[in-house]
């Protein structure tokens, strides 16, 4: 049985325009495709990835236009039907003034105080 791994994503919007995605959300998709048993916990500024309707389009340099801007909320949402649980630190969401109605469906909010118990349910916890 595959080991249970939790990807804790904290570095947010790191080169997302150049990569056209978030590197760790992308890595989670790729590792899931390779058979890993994964969960994702967004903390800090990365909780904003779950806000619906982000629009990073319009980037251009001279006449070179970006045609595939990152769609971070959609990429995150696509993890759910693959069986990847996506969680957000509740306090990090509320401290940023994000309403739960603004979040994509299917994500779970977890309180900071419950993180040790959450981590205990995984074989490995990777903090990105």
């Amino acid at each position, binding site marked *: 049985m595959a080991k249970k791994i939790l990807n804790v994503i904290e570095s947010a*919007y*790191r*080169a*997302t*325009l*150049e*990569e*056209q*995605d978030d590197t760790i959300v*992308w890595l989670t*998709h*790729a590792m899931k*495709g390779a058979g890993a048993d994964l969960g994702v916990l967004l903390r800090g500024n990365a909780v904003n990835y779950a806000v619906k309707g982000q629009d990073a389009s319009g*980037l*251009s*340099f*001279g*006449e*070179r236009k*970006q*045609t*595939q801007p990152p769609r971070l909320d959609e990429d995150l949402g696509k993890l759910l039907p693959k069986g990847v649980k996506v969680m957000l630190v509740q306090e990090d969401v509320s401290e940023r003034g994000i309403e739960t109605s603004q979040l994509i469906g299917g994500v779970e909010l977890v309180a900071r105080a419950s993180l040790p118990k959450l981590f205990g349910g995984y074989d490995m916890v990777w903090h990105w």
Partner: protein
Amino acid sequence: MADKKTLTFAIMDPPYENPRTTTVLRLVDLAVKRGYDVNVFAYEGAVNVPFAKQTPHANAVHGRDVEQEDHPNPKDWVAALYKEAEKRGSKIDWVQCGLCVDERGAGEFIAGPRRGSPADFVKFAEESDNTLVIPTK
């Protein structure tokens, strides 16, 4: 143009690492579009921004082939800035810190940037209307 102004940017971050790379290129784009001449001193990891061997790739996770993905390589953004400058009658002088290039084996960069040294940065700063340093954090 007698009153043409020149801005200098010093950058340090390598490509594909953080938003500062995109931000500085956006600033250069705007400066060129507004008629400024622009100097860039690429220091440390930033010498890899115009590295010629950057290659676009398909992205299976996105479900797109290489053409659909249209993956941006910063070297192409730099090339587009040079084209834009030419079109607007502005000049970009992009200097690659030579020792930084050597350390990284990054000598193959696209046409436009040139090899130089901190002495070029001194000259840029002395002769520019203003200089903005965007360092690595």
